[in-house]
């Protein structure tokens, strides 16, 4: 590879961004792609983690929105990452310094997906086609069915079929009949197989509906997960809320100094208090959370002091300011409580918990909010766990065992259950995953439900897999003691006796 060459991401002309099935993260990355920035610089510019960036780039490549190109360094002097950021850094929310920095090599973006030496394999294919095959092939696992076919989520049946037919004409192995393809042949077959799977699934209403529900569910789970765990984002929002409180307090001060002729001014942030009293709101919230709320009429420490000013003007002003800040804070807290209530109305416990958490940060001394937050957090975790179970079940049905194991694992963190542990072990077993992890979960399932025969068989099978034959036989025999008439147990014991295991 020429050291004067470097690989940059370019936008593909004529792609309608608005029709792409992408999320904010990809859109953000896409906005930074200018045909000059390398992937390492993109990491700096976007402040995303390497993993996030690679994921976004992979999806954008799969969608045909961007491609990687080599440019000559001589004609295009390589900008220093720091100074180059002048344009982009204004958009940065997070300090660029946090982005991981690696020594830059050409093809780095490509290297993230596959070893560029694969392009050197002898095959009767031109370089462009080789690259397209590899780009597609290595994105197969991380792409949705829509991405594999390069169609938007809203695509109708005809669009999906057309996209599939076009893809088939390009990637069906017969297209290269009689040509020496080397390992590209198998890759083409896999690409074709996956495209066919995507087409077959998306052109049948029932399977597409199920898949869409699964996609929505897993995306929501991921974003809710992020919402619950992303302390930094929450801190940023709390910070923003604090700024808003200050601004509002200043505004109140200005209004107090120059009273307008007309009626009270509209709040600049649309934060005018609602006609519902705070107590009412708390009680409603508590009802939705299924517990009795804080005692009615319990006052909060946020009530402004009522003493009239009598000392120095400065002292007076300070107190006035404090009062205004308190009032503004109350407004913000109310706003978040309202958001939480709305979220609960939509059964979005995670969003509610997030709003309540911010409210609690703003009013840390409010015991009522803390109590509500605790309840909401418990419910959010349970809800999320349930959604993850649904996601895992779909993945299990599609034979994506390791993905299912991950989702079950995520669910069990929100809701401890022997069944979930057993499912993790089972999926790891089927998907040839980590045996140690599988045995951990199988054992935990049994610790919670020692008399469950099914769980014990799973543990025994994990032991078999791990090569711990004696332990496995022990577990099968114990299962036989617990349920001497279980057919499944009997069949396993028979196989042991015949020496088949």
């Amino acid at each position, binding site marked *: 590879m020429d050291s004067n060459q470097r690989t940059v991401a370019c936008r593909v002309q004529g792609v309608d961004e608005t029709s792409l099935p992408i999320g904010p993260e990809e859109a953000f990355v896409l906005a930074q792609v200018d045909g000059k920035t390398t992937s390492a610089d993109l990491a700096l510019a976007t402040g995303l983690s390497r993993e996030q960036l690679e994921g976004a780039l992979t999806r954008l490549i799969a969608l045909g929105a961007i491609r990687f190109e080599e440019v000559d360094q001589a004609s295009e002097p390589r900008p220093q990452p720091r100074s180059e950021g002048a344009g982009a850094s204004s958009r940065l929310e997070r300090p660029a310094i946090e982005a991981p920095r690696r020594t830059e090599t050409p093809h780095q973006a490509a290297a993230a997906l596959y070893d560029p030496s694969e392009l050197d394999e002898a095959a009767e294919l031109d370089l462009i086609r080789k690259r397209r095959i590899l780009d597609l092939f290595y994105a197969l696992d991380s792409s949705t069915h829509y991405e594999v076919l390069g169609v938007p989520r809203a695509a109708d049946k005809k669009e999906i*079929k*057309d996209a599939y*037919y*076009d893809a*088939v*004409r390009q990637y*069906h*192995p*017969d*297209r290269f*009949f*009689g040509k020496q393809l080397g390992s590209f042949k198998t890759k083409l*077959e*896999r690409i*074709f*197989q996956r495209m*066919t799977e995507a087409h*077959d699934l998306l052109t*049948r209403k029932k399977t597409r509906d199920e898949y869409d529900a699964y996609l929505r569910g897993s995306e929501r789970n991921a974003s809710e997960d992020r919402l619950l765990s992303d302390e930094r984002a929450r801190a940023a929002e709390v910070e923003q809320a604090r700024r808003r409180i200050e601004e509002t307090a200043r505004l109140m001060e200005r209004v107090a100094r120059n009273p307008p002729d007309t009626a009270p001014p509209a709040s600049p942030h649309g934060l005018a208090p609602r006609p519902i009293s705070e107590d009412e709101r708390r009680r409603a919230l508590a009802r939705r959370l299924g517990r009795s709320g804080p005692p009615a009429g319990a006052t909060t420490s946020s009530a402004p002091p009522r003493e009239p000013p009598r000392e120095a003007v400065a002292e007076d002003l300070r107190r006035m300011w404090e009062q205004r800040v308190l009032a503004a804070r109350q407004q913000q807290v109310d706003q978040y409580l309202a958001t939480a209530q709305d979220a609960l109305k939509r059964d979005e416990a995670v969003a509610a918990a997030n709003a309540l958490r911010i409210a609690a940060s703003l009013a840390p001394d409010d015991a009522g909010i803390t109590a509500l937050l605790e309840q909401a957090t418990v419910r959010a975790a349970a809800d999320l766990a349930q959604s993850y179970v649904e996601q895992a079940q779909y993945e299990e049905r599609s034979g994506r065992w390791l993905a299912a194991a991950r989702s079950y694992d995520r669910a069990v963190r929100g809701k401890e259950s022997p069944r979930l542990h057993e499912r993790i072990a089972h999926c790891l077993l089927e998907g*040839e995953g980590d045996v140690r992890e599988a045995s951990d979960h199988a054992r935990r399932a049994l610790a919670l439900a020692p008399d469950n025969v099914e769980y014990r068989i799973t543990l025994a099978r994990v032991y*078999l*897999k791990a*090569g711990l*034959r004696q332990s496995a036989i022990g577990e099968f025999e114990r299962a036989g003691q617990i349920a001497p008439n279980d057919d499944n147990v009997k069949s396993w014991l028979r*196989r042991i006796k015949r*020496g*088949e*295991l």
Partner: protein
Amino acid sequence: MAERVIGIDLGTTNSCVAVMEGDAPAVIPNRGGYKTTPSIVAVTEAGKRLVGHIAKRQAITNAENTVYAAKRLIGRKFNSPQVKNAIMTCSYGIVEGPHGDVRIKLRDKTYSVPEISSMVLQEMKVIAEDYLGETVSKAVVTVPAYFNDNQRQATKDAGAIAGLDVIRIINEPTAASLAYGFGKGIDKTVAVYDLGGGTFDISVLEIGSHGVFKVIGTTGDTFLGGEDFDARIIDWLVQGFLDEHDVDLRQDRMALQRLRDAAEKAKCELSSVRETEVNLPFIISAGRNEALHLQRVLSRDTLESLCEDLVERTIDICRQALVDAKLDVDEIEDVVLVGGMTRMPAIQLAVGDFFQREPNRGVHPDEVVALGAAIQGAALVEDKHEMILLDVTPHALGIMTFGSYFEELIPQNTTVPTSRTKVFTTSRDNQTAVKILVMQGESKKADENELLGEFILTGLRRAPKGHVEIEVTFEINTDGIVSVNAKDLETGQAQSIQVTATSGLTHDEVKQMMASAADYMVERRGDEQFEAARQEAETLMAQVDALFPDVERTVGGADFGRDAVQKAKATIERTREAIQRKDTATIKEQLETLSRTERMFRGVIGRS
């Protein structure tokens, strides 16, 4: 330009060959001018091999050495019920081969079924070569969609024996759909109803205007076809004769052959007329110097009632095909009829009723499959890529597991190429080899499915059971042919093994048969040259012979004349001897002398 690829429809009763000419496929007529050639092979008393129309014509007098419908036996095992059934009804001898396969005895020699089929393929190859004036070595050959891997492999072997590189095996109904939809910008979901001489297939396809033909589902019955309709007529005739004369015509092979011909003829006639007479005088001898005649009128109504259940069976299979394809009958936008049997009005009616639409009559039922094969052949080797065919595997693929159960890996109607991977472990301590039984079929019980091959992976590390993991990948390629790759996960050592579907022949046998078929080709080509030279020589000799009296009279006693006549007579003598010896080279040498003599004689007579 890439080498021409011919498309061959290797049918149960008739075969057809086609080639792309420009942008359109065309059927190549045989030397008799017919577009289809009977798939019949015979060996005469003199040991001469006959294929096609000539074999069909002599079938009555040489019934025991005439093979028809060999396709019904191809790729099957001797002890299968289908072969048992064929032994009962066929006039030729069926014996067991060395691998439990089927062999056919003709005169004093036994032939494998692929060899018999290769004779038909070779005939089709020669037809194409004569027409194109060039050697042909590549072909796309069609098989019934419901053929299993063994039957496909056996068909490929037949091609190899015939000296043809079969670059692709495609399914008959799919081929038909290519001919139906190719280059017409059609964008439809269609059903192809293919009732041939021996097999029935129904396929459902989506044809995209982009030139993509995607099969959604295919199913069928490899033992349901025109021959079964013929058999019903034969039964009816035999029973009637038995009732009338108390004589069982089945006991007489020659009578049976005549009945077979008459039944087929009557069946065909009843597609256009309401009734026909079966007239077979002297069908069988009855005592001294006496013979019985068979004479009976068969009406279309009678035929339809005789075959009602057969027609119904095809409709049941159509129903199943729609269920498999997850389609409602009103989602089928056109129905294409393929195979000679679809000329039968009762079938057209039943198909129309079931699909709630008039079947398409735009394609020629006997030629459309070969045309489609030619289209696919050209699409593969030419660089235009106008068409891509996406076919499915007609049978589920899996392995036999503990307890003799069938574990499905690739389900039925999966678009090919496709692959599935599964990890297996050893089941005994210190096991150094694993045996995997690869099977094809729909039954949960392994023994009800077709065994494709036994797969033994050797050289495993010695270890306690369960410790050695072997990743096995099942693959079906675009030919629908299965291969299995095995990889020892620990060492990363890979072994790639093609499941040699048991066509009934070993690799060496196929090679040996190829060699002897090639010998036969040389022999046959030689025959043709000899025949041509002989005819030319005979003509010239007759002309010279006819001139002798005039020449002798003209030259009188002149020495010159006597000399010339003597020489001419010697030439004729030499030529006759050469013809006797089948010495083509000498005949050719003499041809020039003969024609010179003839010119000279005419000159002598003219001068006088």
